[in-house]
């Protein structure tokens, strides 16, 4: 039983946490690619920016003496989402829209997004310094829920922290909301139509400029959610999301660029592949030692890949996907 609990703690929970973050980021990347047809590299830094906005708001709120039972960064998240969405719109207007108007190639936009990455990252480091910060500004503690498993014969509990629990709920809510938006609302349908064929969508009377704006709003606010959640789970630092922007792209590509559901599946797929690859299987298979003959004991470490190579797993999956099925598992918008 203890082995199963260990597995749940190490793989199920941390995989779901990572998967939620990858999925939320990948939805933004994939929507932008579907509508605007370029790989938006600055998405990771938009996540970091969202986290820092939440951090500033939470600090301000805490300074006013408002203390709530929930983490402050989570409480201020709706406001931070709106702000990040506005900044995302501003970035588009200032940097991408002029290039699009000139008829620049997608590659030029990609390079421009790298410029935006550098600027956001430089600004964040300039303002906040390059150290690590805690988002628990009001001194609230990171509650850990321990589910006692003694009823099932386990000696250790299942551990889950408060931010993780919040993250599961929020991600589930967002995914459901996104599903209804894309399938039921007029705007969501227009978005899907434009992702399928932009010219046809414009000819049939869809306001493409509005769709572009809505895309940035969704992508920006989801980036803020993902960034804040990540900061709550680990800590806040300027390269918080820059390091995971590649796994996010891997998730979006595995799911098929331009395909929102694919991005969610891809996010969880990449996250679980990473966690399972570095998982030490000996911990689960230890009971086998009793069955195995002497001298054939399991080695102490039976992980598929050493822990240092965790992120590499995502890239290997990415490269294999690109080679074998570049359209992704859900046949995304590739040409």
């Amino acid at each position, binding site marked *: 039983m203890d082995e199963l609990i260990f597995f749940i703690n190490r793989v199920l929970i941390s995989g779901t946490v990572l998967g939620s973050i990858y999925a939320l980021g990948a939805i933004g990347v994939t929507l932008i*690619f579907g509508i605007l047809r*370029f*790989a938006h590299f600055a998405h990771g830094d938009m996540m970091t920016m969202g986290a820092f906005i939440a951090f500033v708001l939470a600090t301000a709120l805490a300074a006013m003496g408002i203390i709530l039972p929930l983490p402050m960064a989570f409480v201020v998240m709706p406001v931070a989402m709106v702000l990040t969405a506005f900044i995302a719109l501003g970035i588009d207007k200032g*940097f991408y829209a*002029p*290039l699009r108007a*000139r008829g*620049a*190639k*997608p*590659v*030029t936009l*990609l*390079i*421009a997004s*790298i*410029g*935006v*990455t*550098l*600027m*956001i*990252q*430089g*600004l964040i*480091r*300039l303002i906040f*310094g*390059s150290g690590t910060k805690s988002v628990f500004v009001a001194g609230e503690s990171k509650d850990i829920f321990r589910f006692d498993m003694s009823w099932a014969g386990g000696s250790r509990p299942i551990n889950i922290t408060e931010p993780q629990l919040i993250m599961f709920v929020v991600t589930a809510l967002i995914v459901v909301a996104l599903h209804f938006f894309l399938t039921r609302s007029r705007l969501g349908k227009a978005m899907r139509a434009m992702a399928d064929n932009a010219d046809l969508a414009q000819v049939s009377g869809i306001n493409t400029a509005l769709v572009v704006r809505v895309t940035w709003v969704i992508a920006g606010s989801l980036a803020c959610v993902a960034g804040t959640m990540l900061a709550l789970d680990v800590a806040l630092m300027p390269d918080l999301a820059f390091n995971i922007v*590649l796994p996010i*792209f*891997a998730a979006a*590509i595995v799911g098929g*660029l331009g395909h929102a559901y694919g991005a969610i599946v891809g996010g969880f797929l990449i996250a679980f592949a990473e966690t399972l690859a570095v998982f030490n299987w000996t911990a689960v298979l230890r009971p086998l030692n009793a069955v195995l003959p002497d001298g054939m004991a399991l080695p102490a470490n039976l992980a598929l890949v*050493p822990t*240092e*190579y965790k*992120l*590499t797993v*995502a*890239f*290997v999956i*990415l*490269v294999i996907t*690109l*080679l074998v099925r*570049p359209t992704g598992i859900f046949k995304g918008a*590739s*040409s």
Partner: protein
Amino acid sequence: MSAASAPLAQGWNSPLRRGLLLFAAMFIIVVVVGMVQGTASILLILTQATGFALIALGLNIQWGYGGLFNFAIMGFLMVGGASTVFLSYPVNMAFWESDGPMMLGRALIAFLVGVVLVLAARRVDRIGITGKWRATIVALAWFAGYIIYRTQIDPAAAYIESTAGFVGGLGLHPVLGWLFGGLVSAVIAFYIGKISLGLRTDYLAIATIGISEILRALIKNMDWLTRGTMTVSPMPWPTPLPQQLQATGMSIPDSFMYARLMFLGIAVLFLVVAFVLVQRAYGGPWGRMMRAIRDNHISAGSMGKDVTGRQLELFIFGSILMGIGGAILATFTQIFDPSGYQPINHTFMIWVMVIVGGAGNNWGVVLGAFLIYIVWVISDPLAQMIFLNLSQLTSSLGWGAIPEIDSRALQMRVFVLGVVITIALRYAPKGLIPEVVKRG
């Protein structure tokens, strides 16, 4: 473009005059920086800028000539650095006298067994196993090969790391190490190109950046080969070190100046040779064919050009220059530190150099490399100055001084780089010295 259609264009629009003016401006900047920061310091900047110019020429071959997107520059620089460590670092006798070489030999055999296994599995269609079954067998063979290799390399790595530290070098001349860096980069580029060049631009960008991260993870964690995060230093120079010059009785400032000057001489020699070769290739039929492929690969293909083969060729040539450049930079700083490589400093900055300088124009790219590197280096002291003044202002206003000025000013460079690239894309998308397109 107007310069191209009107050869008699005057003033700013004449590419030659524009180039000369810009190079003169850069020369003035170099002299000014040299007067402010001292000769030894500007020689340091110039030597590193020369290395980056070589790398930027490599990217210009790939992106400027052939339109190939390469985000794996950092990976090639690391490969170049690691190769030159292996060839030029002094011999580590502790390793050669231990069981290390034999264990590594066994790991090599295990690796070859894995390769044979995979190759054999790929041929099972000859005995009638096709489709899904063949794919399954190939995947299983990969897995088995990986396990076999891991069973041999893991103990070997642990043994070497615990007894000898790392493999050490071969103690050869650093210049040989640089050429070896180019060679290893070429081999790796061949495989990367084979895998990924068929992809469309966006996908290629993401695939290459992923591969570059894989290379970084490997070099950073293969402690037995590269010493990983424990870093290798001091690397030998091809020219006398300042310390050696001091031993002959030279004063300390002079020794640094002359040592760097000699190193700069060799680096510039490499750059000039590469430049001449690259420039001649551009003007020749080969370069014309490459531009034809870049501008319309479908029509080039229908004229009988081997598009994928040529693109692979370009990718390899460019990567050789990147490997050599990376090796020169690692030798010059005398330390090979895998954690010192960052995508911002070693991939994106090269892109900024090429875009700002003018993709496709070698003069422009060299200008861009020097200009951007100098901007990158002097943003730090400039920002520090601005911050110190601001800090005085805020403290005089009673708001208190700005904390952590040193570490913050350093980050200004990243912001400046971002601003430069966005401005360049918006207002000078073809670069400072654009490619001259001859028509008619």
